[in-house]
């Protein structure tokens, strides 16, 4: 559904810009296409779900909807955040269900030209490579594009397999 992110389409969309919501996870800058982001919220009173996959932080109530919270640090195989005080979450819709990606913090919204986008480096940790749709070369740092469908899709399939 987001063909403009597929590498083979890169050339055609050289002049196209996409807006990304930038987020930080363990110091790394990530970007999410803004059209996939429904909310940015502070995850509060997350209810643990025993026996669930480790990446699932729990479930929470977001304005009357039950949202499944995904701990992105665990999803990416990172150490948990030391001070859990001011975490943020990105609200995502996936297959008509609501999910919240728990991250460290949210940055600004960037308009990025497709020309600065590159494919995922082949030597990237597979847990990252699996969920990355590309990398943007920014002036100061690199921004990894998060492929939301793969972040969640893989988890749904593994849960069914389990």
């Amino acid at each position: 559904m987001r063909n403009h992110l597929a590498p083979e389409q890169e050339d055609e969309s050289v002049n196209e810009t996409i807006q990304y919501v930038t987020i930080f996870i363990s110091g790394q800058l990530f970007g999410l296409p803004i059209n996939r982001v429904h909310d940015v919220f502070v995850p509060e009173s997350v209810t643990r779900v025993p026996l669930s996959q480790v990446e699932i932080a729990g479930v929470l109530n977001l304005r009357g909807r039950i949202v499944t919270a995904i701990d992105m640090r665990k999803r990416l195989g990172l150490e948990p955040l030391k001070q859990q005080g001011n975490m943020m979450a990105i609200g995502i819709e996936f297959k008509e269900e609501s999910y919240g990606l728990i991250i460290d913090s949210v940055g600004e919204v960037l308009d990025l030209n497709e020309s600065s986008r590159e494919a995922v480096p082949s030597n990237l940790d597979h847990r990252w490579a699996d969920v990355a749709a590309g990398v943007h070369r920014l002036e100061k740092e690199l921004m990894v594009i998060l492929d939301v469908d793969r972040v969640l899709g893989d988890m749904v399939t593994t849960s069914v397999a389990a």
Partner: protein
Amino acid sequence: MDDLLREFIEETNESLDVVDVELVKFEQEPNNAQILDNIFRLVHTIKGTCGFLGLPRLESLAHAAETLMGKFRDGAPVTGESVSVILMSLDRIKEIVSELEANESEPIGSDEDLIDQLDRLSGIGKYAGQGTSVMDLAGEDDASEPVAEVAEEAPVAQKPVEEATHEVYQVLERELKAGEVSLDELERAFREAEGPEGFDVAQSAKEAAEAAIADAAAQKRMGKTPVTKAPAKAPVAKAKKEEPKAEKEPKSGGGAHQSIRVNVETLEHLMTMVSELVLTRNQLLEIVRRHEDSEFKVPLQRLSNVTVELQEGVMKTRMQPIGNAWQKLPRIVRDLANDLHKEIDLIMIGQDTELDRQVLELIKDPLTHMVRNSADHGLENGEERVAMGKPAKGSIILSAYHEGGHIIIDIKDDGRGIDTEKVKAKILKNELATEAELEKMSEQQINKFIFAAGFSTAEKITNVSGRGVGMDVVRNNIELIGGSVDLKSVPGKGSTFSIKIPLTLAIVSTLLVEASGDRFAIPQLSVVELVRVQNNSEHKIERIKDTPVLRLRNKLLPLIHLSNLLGIDKNEDHDISLDDNGFIVVMQVGAQNFGVVVDAVFHTEEIVVKPMATMLRHLSMFSGNTILGDGSVIMILDPNGVAQAFGSHVGTDVEAGKEEAEKQALPEEKNTVSLLIFRAGSPEPKAVPLSLVTRLEEFEIEKIEFSNGRDMVQYRGSLMPLVQVNDFVQRRTEGSQPMLVFSDAGRSMGLVVDEIVDIVDEQLNIEVSSEVPGVLGTAVIKGKATEIIDVGHYLPQAFEDWFHRKEMSEEDLLVKKLLFVDDSSFFRNMLGPVLKAAGYEVTVCSSGAEALAVLERDPSYEIVVSDIEMPEMNGFELCEAIRRQPATRDIPIIALSSLCTPAAIERGRQAGFNDYVAKFDRPGLIASLKEQRIELGVAA
């Protein structure tokens, strides 16, 4: 699908259900004209609508049935046979209607068989001689004029019909069915017939055509013209019904409609919205509760009341009387009674009891099955009953009533009751329980086995029941909707099945509890009671081994802490806070009772179940989640999942225990080992890995014989040499002598000890290796320095060829990873500790394949010791395989074999073994290991 057709199908289905019930009633009260009128009217309507929609097959069948019923109305005797045939015809109509629903057209087929029977019973058609003529019949009908007219034209219409049926062979390549007309025929009839004025062309054409056919049929019935083989006799009354229908329409339109049809989806949506409203209301109430003097209080109270009413109202729209689910039962029971030659009275009480339609749908099939069961298995036949002093007519009483938030449905029969002995025999036969277990069970408990999978007590498999899938499916279906089923049976008096189901699935009353700081909701339906436990109160948790149980009214209730069940222990301690004061939620799921220990119990709350996210749906422990009044999300426990986990948890505990014991036998790092502690010759404890010991025995002193210079006992048909751990072991002079028996390959040895002290699970860490023969070293076990006995030292004392022992060589303390492969568990267990004592971290594999897998995962092993003679993959093959892998190519491998011929050694060298050691030459092995390491060290 055409709206008209859909409406017809819905209406017809409803009418048919009613007719079913009414007919059974009518059979019992043949003089009740009101019932008959009702039936007649319904069938008539079906028939009329069929004609209107052009469904000739249905129409002709309905017509024939109607004709027969018309005879009843005229005073013909109502026989069981005629009712059966009418019922069969109704079944056929249902079949056709369901086909119609699926394919939007009538299925191909003939109803000649039934029509023929119906005609015979009403004495018309070929049976006209026996009864009234078709003209008389037509005359009885109010709207008979068109028919009569058409009938007069009979000679004209006769020929076309004949032609039509011949033409049909060319056009349709099949015979015409009752009421079917070819196009040619239709056109001709159209031309010939004088249609009533005011009808549109098509309709008149159709009518005319049908009239023509009807006419031909009438002719045929009168026996005048045996026209063709095609059964064109049925639709006599075709034309007449259009008119009454047309007249009726405006009339009924004028009357006030008391009910409307609403799409189920609309109701579902309403229900969801109301659920949301309830949740929001709960949240608001919670907020206001925190602010004492809120101006919102009063309006919120009002909102709350309105919400409650709205909720009830919407719930009501979903409610249907349970009688709807029972509708088919009288018919089923009647047919059963006929089939089984029993007299059965079905009494239904509380048909008006309402429950959610979703639940109703789900309960229908289980109910039907249970009633069938009662009729088939429960009730005796007439003679048996009379012989037992009961009335010949058995009765099944079906009753429904509300109790709390549940509905209870009882199915009670006055039959023979459940034959517990038969059930027992079946349990044993199907190995559902052992005899010993059965001994301990009450009759009721045993009877409940009929709900077990694959259980059926019927000796004969009938088409009625006894297919062996019955009751467990019933139970599953009921449990699926959060219900339970119970059974009471008195031999000779009958049995009662009680089904308890929630009124609705959307809103559940739950008990909120806490475990390890998290809250969970338990559906109240399955909660029997709450027990508070305190160490000093009468209710306290006791333990059998590590299994916690509770004495509750002279019964033992198995317990589990919710935290353990959900794997959310805060601390490592296994049964946290089980000793502390806590609450036990006593739950019942089906026949299973168990206690779930929780840290705290809050209150009950009506909650709206929300489905879980796809990612969580595989968790069988939860049925859903919801938002509580305080806005937090809570997980709802699924009692059935808990019950299942409960059963399997206890089961896996045992399994895990076994596995662990096996694992523990392997002296791997960090693994605990089961050790047998004993005393021999000194007060200090000695230990030996329990897995090495075949059994513990005590032999009477008199049994010990002295022969060939040593002690022997006769053991299992052969002589077993006895060896003392040391010379200080007290040889008893009377009583019996304890000993440890070691066996391998059919040979046994008894190791004489003073006293067997204990079996403990400890990490085996030999801290000080020993130079005393027969002692591997010393380890701290249960806080005491304990000598670990080297069994290998004693075995050659019993059998010199077992292997002989040399001094343990001292090793440097560097831990090296060693992979040991041997298919014999005895050698694995024996050499494991030896190698460990020699300073290796040992991983043990029982096959070549396993070893390769381990090496693939972790190629960092520094040495491999492998047996040669192993099944599937022998040592040579294993060695070659290891050498093939680049990662493991350079690992030294030592062969260990009882086969030490020069040829074998050569073969080993070729395969790539670094050394070849005889299996019993343990010092040789240690020396070889040392050698390899030195070599490795040099190389590195």
